[in-house]
């Protein structure tokens, strides 16, 4: 398995990245940590004409907290975010979920924005971005715009990013101290069969599920218990349109959604 041929540019400025994207559009791909894209290139699922490496751009490698939001630049590796001293106090959900993303050996290279750009439906970072109402900061040669997570993830590995846009950063609201995360996978670090995040919201709780539908799905539930909670979780589990695949049956996935969902709702509301 070797990638198809491509030109390679090691970008020296963000403007340079944007100008190549403006000229080449969908024929260009931005590479950061490469932990998703390189595998796609090796399997020739992606065959760009030009690859733009952004990892030497210091401007993109910062984590900033401003006005109650944490903004993570496109060059921030997952390991660096996990080691950020404020992570567990600022965004506790990510402190809980990020150790489940890949392995030590891939978090040391893979970036936060790269995982979100790849938009794998079972990945943890897209799930947390949805659960927390995060935003994706996009930029082309002419303008900047922000997309809410729910508008960014449009399908399996499909996003609202236009071909001439660079994901400059993603941002998460700080806070949400009452939260929980759990995941079931065949092996730690493998793709989730079901990943679940719960965040207290007002009197109720927001539940976010990854690994089942084409995109991470969220549901805001009022404060419920007993059979009312079971019914709500069961309805949510069916609405996710789970499918059978080599890893698990649809029925098993629904079981996990009901079971983990219930545990996490109770954990967050207790």
């Amino acid at each position, binding site marked *: 398995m070797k990638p198809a041929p491509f030109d*390679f*540019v090691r970008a020296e400025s963000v403007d340079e990245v944007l100008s190549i994207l403006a000229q080449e559009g969908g024929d260009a791909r931005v590479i950061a940590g*490469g932990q998703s894209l390189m595998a796609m290139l090796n399997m020739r699922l992606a065959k760009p004409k030009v690859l733009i490496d952004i990892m030497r751009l210091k401007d993109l490698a910062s984590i900033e907290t401003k006005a109650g939001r944490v903004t993570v630049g496109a060059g921030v590796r997952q390991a660096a975010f996990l080691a950020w001293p404020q992570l567990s106090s600022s965004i506790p959900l990510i402190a809980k979920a990020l150790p489940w993303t890949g*392995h*030590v050996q*891939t978090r*040391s290279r893979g970036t936060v924005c790269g995982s979100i750009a790849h938009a794998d439906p079972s990945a943890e970072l897209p799930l947390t971005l949805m659960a927390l109402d995060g935003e994706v900061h996009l930029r082309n040669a002419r303008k900047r715009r922000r997309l809410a997570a729910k508008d960014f993830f449009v399908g399996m590995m499909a996003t609202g990013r236009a071909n001439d846009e660079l994901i400059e950063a993603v941002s998460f609201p700080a806070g949400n101290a009452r939260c929980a995360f759990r995941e079931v996978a065949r092996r*730690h670090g493998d793709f989730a069969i079901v990943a679940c995040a719960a965040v207290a919201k007002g009197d109720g709780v927001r539940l976010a599920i990854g690994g089942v539908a084409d995109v991470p799905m969220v549901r805001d539930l009022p404060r419920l218990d007993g059979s009312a909670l079971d019914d709500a979780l069961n309805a949510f589990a069916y609405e996710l349109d789970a499918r059978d695949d080599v890893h698990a049956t649809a029925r098993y996935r629904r079981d996990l959604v009901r079971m983990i969902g219930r545990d996490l709702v109770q954990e967050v509301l207790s």
Partner: protein
Amino acid sequence: MKRLDKSSRHTVSFTLNGKAVREEAEPRMLLTDFLRHRIGATGTHVGCEHGVCGACTVTVDGNLARACLTLAVQVDGCDIRTVEGLAISNDRLGVLQAAFRRNHALQCGFCTAGILMSLDSYLRQNPTPTEHDIRDLLSGHLCRCTGYTPIVKAALEAAEELAGIKNSEKADV
């Protein structure tokens, strides 16, 4: 802006286990192939070529990396370390390698180079790991021979030795 053309070879130079190396690569050439076929450093093994098996794990500027998910042109100017850099000399294994031998932590040896690199890097930053830490780290590697238990044992023993708690030097003979 320097655009490296897909159909030509470009000079790539970096430090490999402390020594300067310089060779040529097309932009699409993986670091695994560059190390093995251009440099001739065949200690880094190639397994799955999509980042899952861990056999090709090396360090780039001190950080663990899958060489199969890294392009040679990306590491121009970097400091690369591979399994060839672990032995103290040609006839003397490093502490971690010796612990692997004592504990039968390898059989066919295909996955070993990557696992040694992961553990070497991890133990430098985490000198007193628990068994859970080691097992978590090893989740990034596939070994089909050992069942992992001897690897965990070797890693914990090497950690103790590196921390000066234990000396197994005499058992190496």
